């Protein structure tokens, strides 16, 4: 299962001159939506038997994300860290994750990769499908409900215009939405146990990837400009003294919005 370490969405987020997310430490956190992924993986492993490995790709402090996974109940944690990964686009990150999953499956079969629906930072949602394509296994993204039985995974998903039920044979990649479950809180015991569990650290070399495959070198898109959006000007705030609805109507008409 993959978790992502992202800047806390409640904090002020910024892009640096190089177009990368500023990660100056302190306010990073486990991507909230990945708690749903962890929860789903833990429940499926409890039902079907099996282990949950929390896997993250990111800078040094991304290890907190897998530690949180351990505290929630994951059996193992793997952190892929390498300076060359910096500046990866979604596909580059997917390449690293795919290599890591392949690496892990040399030791034990990986039946299911569970991810969150999106990183609340970039919100591209590209990763799960790209990861499945790279691993050459079926993708069942955006599951609002997921079940596994007899080597088959089945998901129900709500799209903008339709509801779908998808099914595929394992191994597969599933991404889950925040509708799937209510993530558990790590209890004291879990937190203490997590401290003792080791986190395996891997580099690109361990995964047999070249630096040119990933990071800024391997990216096919490049942020050429980034700026905070100017604050809205001419803002109006009124107290309703009995005619606010009428004033709203006039505002809409004056601004050709109605």
């Amino acid at each position, binding site marked *: 299962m993959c978790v992502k370490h992202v800047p806390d*969405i409640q904090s002020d*987020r910024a892009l640096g001159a190089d*177009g990368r997310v500023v990660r100056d430490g302190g306010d990073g956190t486990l991507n909230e939506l990945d708690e749903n992924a962890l929860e789903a993986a833990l429940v499926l492993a409890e039902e079907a038997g099996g282990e949950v490995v929390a896997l993250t790709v990111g800078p040094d402090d991304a290890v907190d994300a897998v530690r949180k996974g351990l505290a929630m109940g994951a059996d193992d944690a793997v952190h892929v860290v390498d300076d060359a990964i910096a500046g990866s686009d*979604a596909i580059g990150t997917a390449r690293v994750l795919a290599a890591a999953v392949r690496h892990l499956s040399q030791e034990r079969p990986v039946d299911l990769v569970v991810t969150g*629906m*999106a990183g*609340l*930072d*970039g*919100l591209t*949602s*590209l*990763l799960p*499908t*790209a990861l499945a*394509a*790279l691993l*050459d296994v*079926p993708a069942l993204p*955006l599951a609002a409900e997921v079940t596994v039985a007899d080597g088959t995974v*089945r998901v129900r998903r*709500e*799209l*903008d*215009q339709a509801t*779908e*039920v*998808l*099914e*595929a*044979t394992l191994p597969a990649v599933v991404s889950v939405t925040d*509708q799937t479950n209510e993530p558990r809180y790590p209890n004291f015991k879990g937190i203490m146990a997590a401290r003792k569990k080791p986190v395996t650290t891997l580099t690109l070399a361990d995964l047999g990837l070249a630096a040119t495959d990933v990071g800024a070198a391997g990216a*096919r*898109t*490049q*942020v*050429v400009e*980034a*700026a*905070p*959006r100017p604050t*809205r000007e001419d*803002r*109006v*705030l*009124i*107290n*309703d003294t009995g005619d606010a*609805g*009428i*004033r*709203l*109507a*006039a*505002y*809409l*008409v004056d*601004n050709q*919005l*109605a």
Partner: protein
Amino acid sequence: MTDTLVLLDHAADGTLRTPVRELVTLARSLGGSVQGVWALGAPDGTGAPDGPSDATLAELGALGLSRVHRVRADADLHLSAALAEVLAALLDSTGAGLLLATSTFENKEVAARLAVATGAGVVTDADALAVEDGRLVAGKTVFAGTWTTRCAVTAPLAVVTVKANSVVVQTADDGGTPDVVDHDVAVSAAARRVTLVERTERPASGRPDLGSAHVVVAGGRGTEGDFSLVEELADVLGGAVGATRVATDEGWIGHDAQIGQTGVTISPRLYIGAGISGAVHHRGGMQASGTIVAINSDPDAPIFEIADFGIVGDLTTVLPQASAELRRLKG
């Protein structure tokens, strides 16, 4: 100059999705030829019209589309893996340098697959697109609409998904009727590994689609479950109805009405939020709206920080008064 393929998203009954018109307009501004892909869903065409209808073809032609590739495959093209395979082949055979699609979850899945299969550079949720120094550069807002970025595609092939309401639709000076080229395609076994057990399209609500509406009126916990006043104002304005996750979780309105980071991302010309506090998760889905109006009884509600027109007041009096006044003004 970039030749473009536009994915012509449509409903099961053959109705073109509104934002596709924006895509064709945008593609034309890049200076190259504009062709479209009309994917027929189920392989046996169960009852669905073949489409595009003559009226749709004429409309697409007027917007500058020169050719429609109509594809039927031996797999359901609602499966992203199957559609991506079809599109990869068409990008190859037409030599187009860009695939444009509306920013839906399904299309982002297709984009991810095309990136892996073809080496294309992908930008999702773009709101602008131009050719600069021979490179495609897309505009995009990030971090819940608080930052604007411009992102260049450095690969020879680009796949860009565009947010609705990013472009003003304009017909071409030299429009015509596009020709239709039929393709019968066999997709690989790998692309058929996922089975589409069931697909139910939501019935049209009679209101515009939330994701592409020009006007959205949204309600939150402050409605206390009664969405009728929100719906009334939406109807007076010809808009769509949206909601916060609190309202959809409570079952006051369907889940598909949820605006936000885990719901629909919208950027209408006008957003009106009533009884909505403006939590960051909600803002992430609407902050890029043109004009933001907020009605909330709490003067400290965070939504007022981003509202162009804020009203501290009770939505149960403000909304009906606004609806009545708008009806009166419009005669």
